[in-house]
């Protein structure tokens, strides 16, 4: 059932129909420099598709996702760092567009959660455990 809808959402024509233009050149072409392509690919996997139901732009067939991939590749090829490209997009669409949540007061609990949970668990167990003797 999940896959039906997954596939339907991926491949069914969106209500607004598709343009007749082909995808942008850099939407589906890898950068010639493997290191740059690796950085671009890693960034694409962390950017959220604006018109999809929860996919990264790397995984989406949507046209706007393709245009965003082209944007990422061109900027990386021009020498920008992935963080700069990410920041540019966040400036336009907010933190929502990045799957990597920012580190700011609003998300401190999120990033601190693992450590806090470990400490809480250890504290709960303090009476259960006895230090090793000898």
């Amino acid at each position: 059932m999940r896959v039906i809808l997954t596939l339907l959402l991926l491949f069914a024509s969106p209500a607004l129909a598709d343009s007749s233009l082909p995808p942008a050149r850099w939407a589906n072409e890898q950068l010639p420099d493997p290191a740059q392509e690796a950085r671009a690919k890693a960034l694409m996997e962390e950017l959220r598709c604006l018109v999809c139901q929860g996919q990264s732009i790397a995984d989406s067939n949507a046209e706007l996702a393709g245009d965003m991939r082209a944007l990422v590749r061109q900027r990386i090829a021009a020498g920008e760092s992935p963080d700069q490209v990410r920041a540019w997009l966040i400036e336009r669409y907010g933190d929502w567009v990045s799957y990597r949540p920012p580190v700011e007061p609003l998300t401190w609990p999120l990033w601190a959660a693992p450590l806090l949970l470990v400490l809480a668990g250890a504290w709960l167990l303090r009476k259960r455990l006895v230090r090793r003797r000898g």
Partner: protein
Amino acid sequence: MNRLTRFLPLFILFAFVGAVAWRLSSPADEKIQSKMIGRAVPAFTLASAVPGKPGLSSKDLASGSPRMVNVFASWCVPCIAEAPLLAELKARGVAIDAIAVRDRPEDVAQFLAERGDPFMRIGADPESRAQLALGSSGVPETFIIDGKGVIRYQHMGPIEPGDVSALIKQWEEAR
């Protein structure tokens, strides 16, 4: 185990139910608003989308008086519905430019011939660059930019009859 610890999971449940109940009562708005509202229009230059009409650049949008920018495409179905309302806005004195996203000149020309042409300038945006720069996430969307080139308002989706007065009001405030 003291009282706090024993009932901690229950407190967590209350927080969860509270958060979820909030979401059920005010469903998520799927639209992603542009964060560029209140900021200067980013620099861009677009070639003309249709022969006979000038292209659009960000300099045209800081001309001293407010301008409305309609992001549309010939293949966009709701854009057909909003065309008469754009004509009405133009008749009421609103200056409208357009960005045609992922479009061919002949298709844009046909769209304008069939649905009317309220635009002064139309820029061609074949790879959605200007659209992304503005923080727009789909078509159609309409922006109001004041005389100093600051983005003042974003309307997402097609303009409906009920939106016209709100748009005029925003237009007046942008003067």
